C-alpha cells in the first residue's frame, strides 16, 4: 500500500494534535475537578473544625460567641445542606469491663433535616466531620455541603477545555496542512522529476525555493541529472566513435581478408602445381633409381649375348675349318655348342627385352587403373634386386645382406603392380639408405641386412620389409607419413616416398601401411593388402 509523505505528515500531526486534545479535554479537566473538590473538601473540613472548636470553647468556657460566629459564617454558604452536632456517649456495660460509643444527634441545622451520623460523602454531597472533647461532653460536628457549585465550575472548566482543545486541534491541523504542503510538494516534485529521469528524460529539473534539506536535495538532484546527462552524452559520442571505428576497421579487415584470400588462392594454386611437380620429380627420381638397376640388369644379358655371339663367331670359324677338314664328328660337336649358345643368347636377349618392357611400364606416368592378378613374391623379388643394384650402381662401396622369405601360399593378388612395385621400391630404398648410413658409422660387427618376406593371412597378404638400421625416434615416427617430411639432407630427399606409398596402399588398394620400430635396432614396414578389393 502506498502512503504518501503528505498523508504521513498529516497523520503524524493528527496523532499529536489528538493526544493534546485528549489531554486538554479529559485529563486536564479531571485533574482540575479533583483539585477543586479537594480544595473544597479541605475548606469544608476547616469549617467543621472551626465549629467544633467553637463548640468546645462554648462548652468549657461558656463562651458561645465563637460558635455563633462560626455558625453564621457557615450558614452564609449557599451550598450548606446541614450542620449536625453529635454527642458521643460512652456507655459502659454493667461490670465496667467494656464500653461502646453511641452517637446521639443533638441538633441539626436546618432543623427540618435529620441525618444519621453514618452518612458518607457522595458525588453530590461532601460530608466532613470534626470531633471535639470537653469535660462536659465529647462530640462531633458533621458538615454536609452540596457539590453543586463545584459541578458548575467543573462544567465551566470542561467547556473551557473543549474550546481550548478545539482551538488546539484547529491550529494543529492548520500547521499539519501547512507542513505537509511545504514538505510534500517539493518531495512530490522531486519524485516526478526522478521518474522522468528514470524514463530517460534528462531535461527535467526541479524548481525548489525552500531553504532546507529538501531544497538542498533538489539542488543536488539537479546537479546529478546534469552530470548524468553529460555522462550519457559523452558515452553516446564515444559509442558513435567506436561504431565508426569498428565499421572502418571492418571494412579494412574485409579488404585484407579478400586480399589474403586471393593470395592464399594463388599460393594454393602454386602449391598444387609445385606438388604435382614434386610428385613428378619423385617419380623421376624413382625412375632414376630404376634406370640404374635396369641398366645393370640389361648389362648382364647383353654381356651374355655379346660374349656368346663372340664365342659363336669363333665356333663358326672353327666349324668352317673342321668342315673343310671334313672332320665330321668335330662339326657335329661344334654345331651342338652353337645351338646351346644360341639358346643362351635368346634367353638373355629375352631377359633384356623383359627388363626394358618393365622399365617402360614403370615410366608410364598413369597406370591404366586396371588391377591385374599379380604374383607378389615375384614382384617383391624383382624390386629387391632392382633397388639393390640401383644403389650399388651409384655407390660401389655399398653392401648389404639380403634375406628373403616368400610364402608360396600367397599366390596371385589383384593389384596395380606398378603402384605396389613403387611402394616396395620406396620402402626398400629407405631401408637400404638407413643400413648404409649405419654401416658408414663403422660399428664393429655390424652387418647391414635388409629382409623381405611375404605371408598369407586369411584374406590378406602381408609384405614385411625390415632393416637393422637405427630405428625411428617417436618424434619422427609421428610425421613420417606426412607429405614432404624428410630427415635427409636438403636436396637428397623429397619426403614424398612414404606419403605416396600410404596413399597407394590405403586409398588405392584398401590396405594398410604401418611401421614397427625399435630405436637403435631397426624398423619393419608392414604392408597388408586384401585379396578382395
Amino acid at each position, binding site marked *: 500500500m502506498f502512503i504518501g509523505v503528505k498523508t504521513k505528515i498529516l497523520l503524524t500531526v493528527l496523532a499529536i494534535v489528538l493526544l493534546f486534545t485528549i489531554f486538554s479535554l479529559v485529563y486536564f479537566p479531571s485533574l482540575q475537578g479533583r483539585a477543586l473538590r479537594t480544595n473544597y473538601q479541605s475548606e469544608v473540613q476547616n469549617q467543621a473544625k472551626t465549629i467544633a472548636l467553637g463548640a468546645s470553647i462554648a462548652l468549657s468556657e461558656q463562651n*458561645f460567641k465563637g460558635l455563633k460566629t462560626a*455558625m453564621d459564617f457557615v450558614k452564609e454558604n449557599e451550598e450548606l445542606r446541614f450542620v449536625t452536632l453529635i454527642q458521643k456517649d460512652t456507655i459502659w456495660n454493667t461490670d465496667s469491663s467494656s464500653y461502646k460509643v453511641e452517637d446521639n444527634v443533638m*441538633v441539626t441545622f436546618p432543623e427540618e433535616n435529620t441525618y444519621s451520623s453514618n452518612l458518607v460523602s457522595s458525588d453530590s454531597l461532601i460530608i466532613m466531620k470534626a470531633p471535639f472533647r470537653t469535660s462536659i*461532653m465529647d462530640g462531633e460536628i458533621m458538615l454536609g455541603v452540596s457539590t453543586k457549585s463545584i459541578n458548575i465550575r467543573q462544567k465551566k472548566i470542561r467547556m473551557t477545555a473543549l474550546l481550548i482543545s478545539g482551538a488546539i486541534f484547529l491550529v494543529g491541523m492548520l500547521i499539519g496542512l501547512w507542513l505537509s504542503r511545504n514538505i510534500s510538494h517539493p518531495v512530490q516534485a522531486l519524485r516526478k522529476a526522478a521518474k522522468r529521469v528514470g524514463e530517460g528524460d534528462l531535461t527535467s529539473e526541479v524548481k525548489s525555493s525552500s531553504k532546507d534539506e529538501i531544497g538542498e536535495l533538489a539542488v543536488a538532484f539537479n546537479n546529478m541529472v546534469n552530470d548524468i546527462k553529460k555522462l550519457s552524452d559523452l558515452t553516446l559520442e564515444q559509442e558513435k566513435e567506436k561504431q565508426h571505428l569498428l565499421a572502418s576497421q571492418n571494412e579494412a579487415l574485409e579488404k585484407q581478408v579478400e586480399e589474403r584470400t586471393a593470395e592464399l588462392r594463388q599460393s594454393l594454386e602454386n602449391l598444387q602445381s609445385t606438388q604435382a611437380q614434386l610428385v613428378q620429380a619423385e617419380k623421376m627420381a624413382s625412375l632414376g633409381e630404376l634406370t640404374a638397376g635396369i641398366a645393370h640388369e640389361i648389362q648382364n644379358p647383353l654381356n651374355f649375348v655379346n660374349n656368346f655371339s663372340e664365342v659363336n663367331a669363333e665356333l663358326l670359324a672353327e666349324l668352317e675349318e673342321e668342315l673343310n677338314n671334313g672332320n665330321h664328328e668335330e662339326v657335329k660337336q661344334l654345331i651342338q655348342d652353337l645351338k646351346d649358345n644360341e639358346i643362351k643368347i635368346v634367353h638373355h636377349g629375352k631377359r633384356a627385352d623383359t627388363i626394358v618392357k618393365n622399365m617402360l611400364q614403370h615410366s608410364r606416368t598413369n597406370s591404366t587403373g586396371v588391377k591385374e592378378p599379380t604374383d607378389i613374391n615375384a614382384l617383391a623379388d624383382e624390386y629387391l634386386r632392382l633397388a639393390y643394384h640401383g644403389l650399388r650402381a651409384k655407390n660401389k662401396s655399398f653392401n648389404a645382406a639380403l634375406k628373403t622369405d616368400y610364402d608360396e601360399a600367397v599366390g596371385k593378388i589383384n593389384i596395380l603392380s606398378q603402384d605396389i612395385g613403387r611402394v616396395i621400391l620406396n620402402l626398400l630404398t629407405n631401408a637400404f639408405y638407413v643400413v648404409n648410413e649405419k654401416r658408414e658409422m663403422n660399428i664393429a660387427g655390424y652387418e647391414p641386412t635388409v629382409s623381405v618376406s611375404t605371408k598369407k593371412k586369411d584374406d590378406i597378404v602381408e609384405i614385411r620389409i625390415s632393416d637393422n638400421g637405427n630405428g625411428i625416434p617417436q618424434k619422427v615416427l609421428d610425421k613420417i607419413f606426412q607429405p614432404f617430411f624428410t630427415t635427409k639432407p636438403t636436396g637428397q630427399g623429397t619426403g614424398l616416398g612414404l606419403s605416396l606409398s600410404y596413399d597407394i596402399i590405403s586409398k588405392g588398394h584398401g590396405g594398410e601401411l604401418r611401421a614397427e620400430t625399435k630405436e637403435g635396432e631397426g624398423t619393419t614396414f608392414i604392408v597388408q593388402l586384401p585379396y578382395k578389393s
Partner: protein
Amino acid sequence: MKNFLLPILFLLSITVYSQNSELTVIGNKKGVPAQLSTSNLKSIFMGNQPKWSDGSKVIIAMMKFTTDGGKNTCSKLYQKSTTDVTKHWLTVSMKGVIDAPVFFNTAAELQNFVANTAGAIGVFDGTVTASTAKTVLIDGKTSF
C-alpha cells in the same frame, strides 16, 4: 499587682456571701418589660424568644456556671444541672435563632453589661448596684 489583687479579694467575699441567696433579674431600659411571670422568664431564658415586643433583640446575661450565682441560676431558674444548661445553650447557639447568652464572673460586670446593652436581660445573685438598669419584677417580686 495590688490593683489586680483587690478585685479578686472582693469577688471572693461576694461569692461566699451570696451562697444560696436569692436571684434577681435586671433588664436594660430599652425593650425589657418591667414585669414577667416565672414561666415567661423561663421561656425567655430557654432562648425561645428572640425579640422584645418593641422589636429589639433579646440578649441574655448570666453568671458563669462555675460561680455560685451561675449554679443558683441553673438550679432555681432552669431546675437543671449546669451541664444540661450548657448543652442546651450549645444547641440553641447552633440553631442561631437568638444571640448567644453572655456569661460573667461578677455581678457587677453583669449589671454593667445589662445597663449598657439594649434589650439585655440578666439574672444574678446579690443586690442591684447599677443605677441605670431596672429591676424586673418576677411574679411581682424583686427576687426569687
